């Protein structure tokens, strides 16, 4: 084994024995260290020798250094003194341990969230760009991307991509639905993707005009092609067009998809979007792409943003019709992916620091209590010739023992907590976070806690030695605290109460907000609602007529099944996750500015769709059979759309009005009905939250319901209300098979289950929060008990005197509760004041809860008061029961 002998072993030897001997021992250690072949064995042997030498050196005393001997005595004495008051010591060590465990775990998690763990090369320099405009945000168009590419030197590499739509593989009557990602040349290289087999695209295959090649995922390759290497170079049919398979993506490649979203099965050149999905040519203005960029060396994210601002400003100037108020927003890829949990993590981290503070306050409290109690003892020792330094040292050692006990326990608990937390966070909150305990971080937290505890403890230690010898000795050595001491102790109790209140208010607000999020309904009954997707992509469904005929036949057959209460065509988005949007504006409004348009989700339904789903029609009528392919287009709009356009008029006023779309070539919608708001967007979309605009699923619900027959798209979803449970699924399949025996039902799931899955991440976060809050409550409780019980304990003698002088137990109790209340009530008030000031910081994180939510504030205050009452009440009751004579004699 090479390298130096571990410093700790060297230190131990030098500490224990005189320098001449130490040199000899260290020489032997060095020889042993070098002679061993395994590091582990070398460590073991060297430490065995060092510990043995230290032990014998200490026992030797006369030979060992005198100071070491003295320190050992001090430690032994401090130990005795710590053990003499087990409850006090344990309470201090425990609160420090809890504070340290929770804060280390939470800080570690927060750090992991901020840092992210992206499985991409040089991921710290990857930038994600999206567009925003008044009233919305979203993708960029190809021309925007082209304009940007020319004018952002701060980004030395740029790509566009979009995972979107569905493509049928295999042609014929029974295609398999695949999720495609459309990419530009630099996208895959930027993410460090490599082929497992074959190759990825080269630049010539990805130009705006090229298509015809496809890269398939490892999963698809195994599932569909039996992992046959011959697939490379073969031709496959995608939506009826031939594509050549050029490569299989490496299995470990992680695509840029949100948790819960389907990862792509195939990668295609952006140009393929046009023929495959019926998109406008990508060179036109359709905003369908995200942009991924790489920061040039030395370019800061601020520089990137400046350049993006300049590009956007130029676009807005040159193309006012489409780009007024347009902005390009850049953010690091990490915060794009983890943005939603970044802010809650920040609040949690702040809470963790508060918890650490409480833990420290407890250790300081213990030191103060001890110092106060032992004033007499210290005075006696000083009188007998002990130096003040010695006494301070001993007091500090006592603090160190308690802090070390709490620290070690806390770190072990933190390690366990992180071990549980890590897989939990990665599975449920974000795949782009890797929570790993860092020894450095834990060490820093522990060191901070211990140093803080000792620093706070120093003052009382010094105070303890500044005693009036005569007076102290006269006080029979114990029990009486000087008034000044009370002020310091009182200050700490007040601070502790205040911090507890702030902590509880903080976690309370976030907790209530999460609870509100999780319990907010979608606005219609979701029970027994089976949802699935059908892609009408085969040869059979080329014409509009064929798809319209299918939709009618589908509803008729499925509805006829005894297991089914109602069947509705929905789509093109899946119910519970609306992603298709359109923009509308009343025809009589000026439309010079694009922001005048309102963006809403649209849903294509079969007749009586709203009634089947249970969404109330507030005015006008539902989509009906009278809405034919030719007599439209008509629309039912949601209440929020009406309120936006005609805020002062009754809902019925909207009926018969006409809505225009930004593309002047498209016909106007005629409003035939107004529906109650229902939540169709993903309520907890991390993507929405990451943009900092609040989840769209939670704000005003702007929706348009259109007859499917007037817009018969290929991507169709269905909502079937069952009479029984999901076991009747077979009946539904049978009914669909009667219409088209070859049509596969994709992504079959009950809506309830779908919605529950959407909230997984949020629930997981809520769980972390709940555990954290529970720890905070326990910590605050234990801390308050320790601090207040001590205040009471110290006054036991005074209680004895009062009772000996004739005070009744009731009045003693009242008096002590008054003393406790004098500390707790100001603490609570200060805490509430601070919480009020801070609550506006978390405002943006709250949903459905006011920043000054009286229930949370009141509840937190009540909880702290309750804990304080118990903390004062128990020792007071005990003190009031004791015999005054005993109390006086004992003290």
């Amino acid at each position, binding site marked *: 084994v090479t390298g130096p002998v571990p410093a700790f072993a060297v230190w131990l030897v030098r500490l224990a024995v005189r320098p001449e*001997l130490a040199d*000899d021992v260290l*020489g032997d250690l060095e020889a042993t260290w070098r002679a061993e072949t395994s590091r582990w064995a070398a460590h073991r042997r060297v430490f*065995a020798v060092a*510990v*043995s*030498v230290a032990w014998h*050196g200490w*026992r*030797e005393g006369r030979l060992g250094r005198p100071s070491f001997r003295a320190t050992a005595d001090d430690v032994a004495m401090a130990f005795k003194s710590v053990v003499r008051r087990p409850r006090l010591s344990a309470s201090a060590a425990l609160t420090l341990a809890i504070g340290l465990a929770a804060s280390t775990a939470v800080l570690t998690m927060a750090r992991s969230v901020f840092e992210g763990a992206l499985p991409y090369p040089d991921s710290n320099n990857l930038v994600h760009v999206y567009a925003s405009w008044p009233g919305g945000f979203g993708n960029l168009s190809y021309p925007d991307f082209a304009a940007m590419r020319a004018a952002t030197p701060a980004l030395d590499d740029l790509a566009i991509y979009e995972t979107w739509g569905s493509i049928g593989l295999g042609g014929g009557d029974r295609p398999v639905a695949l999720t495609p990602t459309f990419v530009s040349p630099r996208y895959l290289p930027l993410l460090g993707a490599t082929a497992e087999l074959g190759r990825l695209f080269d630049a010539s295959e990805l130009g705006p005009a090229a298509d015809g090649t496809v890269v398939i995922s490892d999963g698809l390759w195994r599932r569909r092609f039996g992992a046959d290497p011959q697939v490379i170079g073969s031709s496959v049919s995608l939506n009826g067009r031939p594509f050549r398979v050029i490569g299989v993506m490496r299995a470990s490649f992680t695509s840029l998809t949100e948790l819960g979203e389907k990862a792509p099965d195939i990668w295609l050149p952006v140009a393929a979007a046009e023929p495959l999905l019926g998109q406008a040519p990508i060179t036109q203005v359709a905003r369908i792409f995200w942009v991924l960029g790489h920061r040039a060396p030395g370019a800061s994210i601020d520089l990137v943003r400046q350049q993006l601002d300049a590009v956007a400003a130029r676009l807005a100037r040159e193309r006012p019709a489409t780009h007024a108020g347009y902005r390009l927003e850049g953010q690091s890829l990490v915060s794009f992916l983890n943005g939603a949990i970044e802010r809650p993590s920040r609040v949690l981290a702040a809470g963790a620091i508060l918890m650490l503070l409480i833990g420290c306050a407890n250790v300081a409290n213990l030191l103060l209590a001890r110092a106060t109690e032992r004033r007499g003892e210290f005075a006696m020792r000083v009188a007998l010739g002990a130096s003040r330094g010695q006494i301070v040292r001993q007091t500090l050692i006592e603090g160190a023992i308690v802090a070390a006990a709490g620290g070690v326990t806390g770190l072990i608990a933190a390690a366990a907590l992180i071990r549980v937390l890590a897989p939990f966070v990665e599975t449920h909150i974000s795949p782009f976070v890797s929570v790993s305990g860092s020894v450095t971080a834990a060490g820093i937290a522990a060191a901070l806690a211990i140093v803080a505890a000792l620093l706070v403890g120093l003052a009382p230690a010094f105070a303890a030695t500044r005693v009036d010898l005569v007076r102290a000795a006269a006080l029979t050595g114990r029990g009486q605290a000087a008034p000044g001491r009370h002020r310091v102790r009182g200050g700490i109790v007040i601070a502790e109460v205040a911090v507890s209140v702030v902590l509880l208010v903080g976690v309370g607000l976030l907790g209530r907000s999460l609870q509100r999020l999780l319990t907010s309904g979608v606005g219609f009954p979701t029970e027994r609602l089976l949802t699935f997707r059908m892609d009408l992509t085969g040869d059979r469904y080329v014409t509009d007529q064929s798809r319209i005929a299918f939709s009618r036949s589908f509803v008729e057959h499925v509805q006829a099944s005894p297991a089914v209460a109602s069947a509705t065509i929905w789509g093109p988005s899946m119910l519970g996750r609306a992603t298709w949007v359109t923009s509308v504006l009343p025809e009589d409004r000026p439309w010079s500015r694009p922001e005048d348009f309102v963006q809403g989700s649209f849903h294509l339904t079969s007749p009586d769709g709203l009634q089947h789903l249970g969404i109330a029609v507030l005015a006008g009528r539902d989509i009906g059979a009278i809405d034919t392919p030719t007599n439209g287009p008509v629309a039912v709009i949601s209440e929020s759309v009406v309120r936006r356009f005609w805020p002062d008029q009754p809902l019925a006023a909207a009926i018969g009005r006409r809505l225009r779309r930004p593309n002047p070539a498209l016909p106007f919608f005629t409003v035939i009905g107004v529906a109650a708001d229902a939540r169709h967007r993903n309520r907890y979309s991390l993507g929405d939250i990451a943009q900092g605009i609040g989840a769209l699923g939670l704000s005003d619900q702007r929706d348009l319901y259109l007859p499917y027959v007037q817009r018969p798209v290929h991507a169709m979803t269905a909502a079937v209300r069952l009479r029984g449970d999901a076991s009747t699924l077979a009946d539904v399949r049978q009914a669909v098979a009667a219409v088209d025996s070859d049509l596969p039902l994709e992504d079959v799931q009950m809506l309830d289950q779908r919605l529950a899955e959407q909230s997984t991440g949020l629930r997981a976060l809520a769980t972390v929060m709940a555990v954290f809050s529970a720890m905070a409550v326990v910590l605050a409780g234990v801390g308050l008990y320790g601090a207040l019980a001590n205040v009471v304990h110290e006054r036991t003698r005074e209680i004895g005197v009062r009772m000996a002088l004739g005070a009744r137990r009731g009045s003693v109790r009242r008096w002590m509760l008054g003393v406790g209340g004098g500390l707790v009530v100001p603490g609570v008030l200060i805490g509430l004041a601070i919480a009020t000031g801070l609550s506006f910081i978390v405002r943006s994180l709250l949903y459905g809860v006011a920043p000054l939510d009286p229930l949370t504030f009141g509840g937190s205050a009540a909880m702290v008061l309750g804990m304080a009452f118990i903390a004062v009440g128990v020792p007071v009751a005990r003190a009031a029961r004791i015999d005054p004579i005993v109390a006086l004699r004992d003290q």
Partner: protein
Amino acid sequence: MPSVAEFELRVLLTVLRCGESGYAAAVHEDLEARSKQKTSVGAVYVTLDRLERKGLLESTLGEPRAERGGRARRHYRLSKRGQDAVRLECRTMQALWRGLGVVEERR
């Protein structure tokens, strides 16, 4: 004449036996081998040091050695007083053992 404790006597005898190579590690090894008992290495170091301070052992530094990180070895040998002490101890013990028949004796 300073008193010699039992472990100290063992160490003194082992140093005597080791002769030229009377340094701590060798003493420890020899002591364990001959006494067939596990002995704490720290105790050997500390005892050697103590015996030197009592004047029963003398020590000299050898050549600096690379494998010891450039440190020299401390070689111990019995001082005049150490030899006297061992001899005295031996005589005392023999006198005490004699005639008890616990171990074989040669007259």
